[in-house]
């Protein structure tokens, strides 16, 4: 038992070191460093609001917040998966040396994305105040989609990281897929403007469901529908399970290939 606890502590320590390293690497040569994690989404939101608010002003109230909520979750997913994808290949030499199994490196990348989410979230909270969004109890539900999205992203990243070892092309393919996913996530347009068929497509998009949930609890202050609960739980658990299975199943051949 004592050994287990020590092992876990060691594992957490190693994870923290890796996350710190990724963050430091990312901003290695910039002056503002970690501040960019706060500034970036803010600037992004400003630009998008300037461009689109005239078009969607009538149909979406608090357009910047609408946008920011989606953006926040979207960038968590896209960063976690696209960074996590190359985690195994980038850490080749360390992977052969360490006693930790390969998924540690992928998880570290996902957690790095989470820490970025944290910084952006600080900016988000400020924006909520500025736009006088009334706080509700439902806001306390925000960790639900966050954790489930993390699970989903981890699963996707684990799967992708295995693919990436064998086919580096997946990187380019995935960036296109990400773009496709982004446009069907209703980040910057109102979903109800779309045709019915299109809305069905949106419903099948996991990220859109997470974003819907987040908007319900943050922006509209309502309880998400049971169906939405069910869906995000399903995506989160299935995503993680599938990715983990794929990863474990291929672990040995990955080690050989690397």
């Amino acid at each position, binding site marked *: 038992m004592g050994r287990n606890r020590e092992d876990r502590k060691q594992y957490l320590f190693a994870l923290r070191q890796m996350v710190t390293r990724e963050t430091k*690497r990312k901003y290695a040569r910039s002056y503002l460093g970690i501040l960019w994690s706060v500034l970036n989404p803010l600037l992004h939101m400003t630009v998008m609001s300037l461009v689109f608010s005239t078009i969607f002003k009538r149909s979406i109230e608090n357009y910047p917040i609408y946008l920011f909520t989606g953006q926040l979750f979207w960038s968590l997913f896209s960063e976690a998966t696209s960074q996590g994808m190359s985690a195994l290949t980038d850490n080749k030499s360390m992977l052969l040396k360490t006693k930790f199994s390969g998924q540690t490196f992928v998880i570290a990348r996902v957690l790095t994305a989470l820490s970025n989410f944290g910084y952006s979230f600080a900016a988000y909270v400020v924006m909520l105040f500025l736009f006088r969004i009334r706080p509700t109890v439902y806001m306390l539900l925000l960790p639900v989609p966050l954790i489930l999205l993390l699970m989903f992203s981890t699963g996707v990243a684990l799967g992708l990281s295995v693919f990436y070892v064998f086919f580096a092309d*997946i990187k380019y*393919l995935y960036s296109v897929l990400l773009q496709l996913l982004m446009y069907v996530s209703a980040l910057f347009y109102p979903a109800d403007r779309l045709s019915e068929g299109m809305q069905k*497509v949106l419903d099948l998009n996991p990220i859109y469901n997470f974003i819907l949930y987040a908007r319900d609890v943050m922006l509209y202050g309502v309880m998400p529908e049971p169906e939405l609960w069910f869906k995000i739980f399903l995506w989160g658990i299935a995503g993680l399970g599938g990715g983990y299975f794929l990863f474990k199943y291929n672990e040995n*051949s990955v080690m*050989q290939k690397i």
Partner: protein
Amino acid sequence: MRAETRWGYKMMLTWVFLAAAMAAAISIGAACLLQSQRRLEGQSGRTDRPYLGQRKTEEAYLAEEAGNGSEDGMALAKETGNGDEDGMAFEEDLADGAFEESLLYEEEYGLEEWDDTEEYEEPVISVQNVTMIFHISTSNASGLKEYLIQRLKHQVSHRELIALDHVDFDVYQGEVVGIIGTNGSGKSTLLRIVSGALRPTAGRVLVDRRKVQLLTLGTGFDMELSARENVYLNGAMIGYSKAFLDSHYQRIVQFAELEGFMEEKVKNFSSGMVSRLGFAIATAGDAAEILILDEVLSVGDEFFRKKSLKRIQEMIHGGSTVLMVSHGMGTILEHCTKVVWIEKGVLQMVGDAAEVCGAYRGMEADKEKEWSEKLG
């Protein structure tokens, strides 16, 4: 209004088409991956399916393929779909001959099942009939697209590289075992198998992995980070706790002789500095019970080399069992109680250091002679 809905309909079709294309691409990739995975593991002794069964599926596979030659997309889908289920098409030639016997072996780690009634002392590391085969793709498909095209044309062939061929030896408590052999003869592969990073294709290694510590150098540094950050990162990965690193930090810096450089980024270090730091981190801990040293003794300048040799000797005398790879014959002769000589994956000799090294030198001399004759 009407125009808008029609537009939406078309848009939807486009989206669906795009999504389907993506899904198809990904599932094809998955199928190929699974197939290559099967191929890698087919001979590993984990397949307990009868050989006949495999052949049957292969026939079915060929028949199915022949049936749908015309439509490219269909053939592709069928083929990969089939590969997904039991893609054994490539395995026929692998499954017979030498590998059939490998099915008899099971893989196993851990010492739980040691037979205590044996007369001799228990080995700490027991390498039993280990064979390691790598598959190297001879087609030079650099990416998914080319790979798929070549697969469709049945041009993907794999060359087998037998890195280790039925290697068999034991290491007992307190022994210092050197592994020698020319470059590319499978020494590092062997160390990786013993340390547990790789699973052998056939055969097994009995060792308590919790006791094993693998020391390699110069790898795993992040060039963008400072030396201090690298000490913590690397230490954490090797398995040192935060408390341990905090208390040993000064010693590591002193040993690496890098006082005053620790806040510099590692990319500004010379290669000697990097390897000194690597050595200092790797040997900071108390010696593990089983130490595996991969070329750690050829580091830095003459002075540092002496110092690191001394440190390794301390660890050896601390009672560790050591398995080491080195190109320095002197080091091997001086420290090892036993030497294993591997040449091109085949075990040549196991025995007394002087004897084996002598034989190895003899071979080297022969080779040199051959070369000088060739060159005239």
